[in-house]
């Protein structure tokens, strides 16, 4: 039975055994390929091939599906530096990332830690916190149409508590529109990550907490000094997921709610890519934006990995 174990545990020069081992390895390799092939082929065809195509198209000037493609090298990328809508989109996506990444994940961690302490009613809280995750992004966007309406719920509440001066058409105002869109992340994402963090923290051995309490540490300290480093890896995973959402997923809120307006004040990279491809028919340019998103994503993910990698022991 040990045959299947690590390849190089050959005892002494037993030629037959080596031959069998060789044969078995060969056979395993073929079996492996047969089992992996469907998934591999499908993935290469439907994900990897379009990805390679994206890089290829980003070097083309291509203005419509039935138009000729013209190779232009890096011209599309040079054009970005002069395209104020692109620059606005880049800035807005930057703002979105800076607000939403820490703004959603850190409070979510705190709520998650609170939940993991099993306070009275935590089951109910967990249920409510996780509810938005069960509502599709489209449905949430449609809900927020009503929330942000001039006569919508946000303005009604503001007027109700005597802050009527703040009431405004949130999605129609150049200074609030971007933040109104970012705020939707908090509705959907916060509770979702909080519940996931609490699940991660439940796996943490209680002894570690006890030891800290015995040392006289308070809850707050334990939360940040004990719990946080322990699930830092997992927090990193959630940061990555959220970053991907910000870069591409959030385009759908812009598409559904403002189409980048008023003016271009709510333009984001993801939506600009969509709009260039399907409204302006600038296919090459749109895929160059895709490449930028891809690179930003890759850099962001590497950074997150770097930051959240555990380089110290508890």
């Amino acid at each position: 039975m040990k045959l299947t174990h690590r390849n190089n545990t050959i005892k002494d020069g037993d030629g037959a055994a080596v031959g069998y081992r060789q044969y078995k390895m060969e056979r395993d390799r073929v079996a492996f390929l047969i089992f992996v092939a469907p998934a591999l082929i499908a993935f290469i065809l439907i994900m990897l091939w379009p990805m390679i195509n994206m890089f290829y198209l980003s070097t083309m000037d291509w203005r419509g599906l039935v138009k000729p493609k013209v190779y232009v090298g890096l011209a599309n990328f040079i054009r970005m530096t002069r395209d104020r809508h692109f620059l606005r989109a880049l800035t807005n996506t930057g703002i979105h990332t800076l607000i939403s990444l820490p703004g959603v994940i850190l409070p979510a961690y705190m709520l998650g830690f609170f939940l993991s302490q099993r306070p009275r009613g935590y089951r109910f809280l967990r249920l409510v916190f996780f509810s938005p995750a069960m509502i599709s992004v489209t449905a949430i966007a449609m809900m927020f149409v009503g929330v942000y309406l001039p006569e919508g719920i946000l303005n009604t509440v503001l007027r109700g508590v005597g802050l009527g001066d703040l009431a405004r058409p949130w999605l129609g105002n150049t200074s609030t529109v971007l933040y109104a869109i970012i705020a939707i992340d908090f509705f959907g994402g916060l509770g979702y990550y909080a519940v996931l963090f609490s699940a991660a923290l439940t796996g943490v051995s209680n002894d570690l907490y006890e030891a800290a309490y015995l040392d006289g540490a308070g809850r707050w300290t334990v939360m940040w000094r004990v719990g946080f480093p322990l699930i830092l890896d997992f927090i990193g995973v959630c940061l990555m997921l959220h970053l991907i959402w910000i870069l591409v997923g959030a385009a759908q809120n812009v598409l559904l709610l403002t189409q980048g307006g008023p003016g271009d004040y709510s333009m984001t990279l993801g939506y600009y890519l969509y709009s260039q491809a399907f409204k302006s028919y600038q296919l090459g340019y749109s895929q160059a934006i895709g490449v930028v998103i891809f690179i930003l994503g890759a850099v962001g993910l590497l950074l997150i990995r770097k930051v959240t990698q555990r380089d110290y022991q508890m």
Partner: protein
Amino acid sequence: MTMSYKKRLVQRLRDGKTIFNIGGYIASIIYVLIIVVPLYYVIISAFKDNAQIFSAPLTPPSKLSLVNFINAEKTGRLGRALGISLFVTVCGEVLSLVLAFPAAYAIARIRTNLAALVERFFSLGFLIPAFAMLVPLVLLMAQLKLLYKPLSLVLLYPVWRLPLAIVVLAAYLRTVPRELEESAELDGASRMQILLLILFPLARAGVITVLIINFITFWNEYLFALILMSQENRTMQVALSILKGERSVDYGMLAAGVLFSIVPVYIAFLIFQERVVEGIYSGAVKG
């Protein structure tokens, strides 16, 4: 008695538990309100007309009229959309397992130096922002003659989420003790038999996890469905966005559509709550 109570109180205050809990509850209540108030607003709006929604946004409806739901169904053809969404989701789930399970088995169970390589390939593939390559994907679907047909989503969704499914399933398969497999092998079972008869049932926790994560993704996906589907074949999410009409917005109808789309999923969630949270969590941990 009083002593020990006092002592306990001091102790509690010292480790900050009370203050911490108060803070936690306040934060939780605020967040619960953020979630519940818009939901409440949607629920009551679904039974009102525009005039009532604007004049008294937070007042409950005077009567439970279903007219908004009927209009929403008619305008968005939600019934049909529901069918398309179900079709895409179910077929996508099946395809996802058909592709991912054998691959995960091979990665977790067949000893070869290729395994680590392939697993790494897939775990990197997890991070591809598929939306960024919108144009090549449309081209591909056009070449495959699948454009505007539900089959395009049936193909795209599982493959797009394949890395997650494979990595999660492989992680579960690794927890299955080898002995069962080995004794089956001695009994002369083929790999296929082992896969289907032994491992598939034993890894069902992983299978369920994958099914849950995929369900949420497939069911809720909007952007690809918008681009790759015809009006005739629009999914639930696309139909929902149609309700926000171009010329005038009937907010009551929109709210009814939102309710229509979330209630079935939410009921399923209430029933399988633990499983869903656990599934998504382990998906995130292992992915």
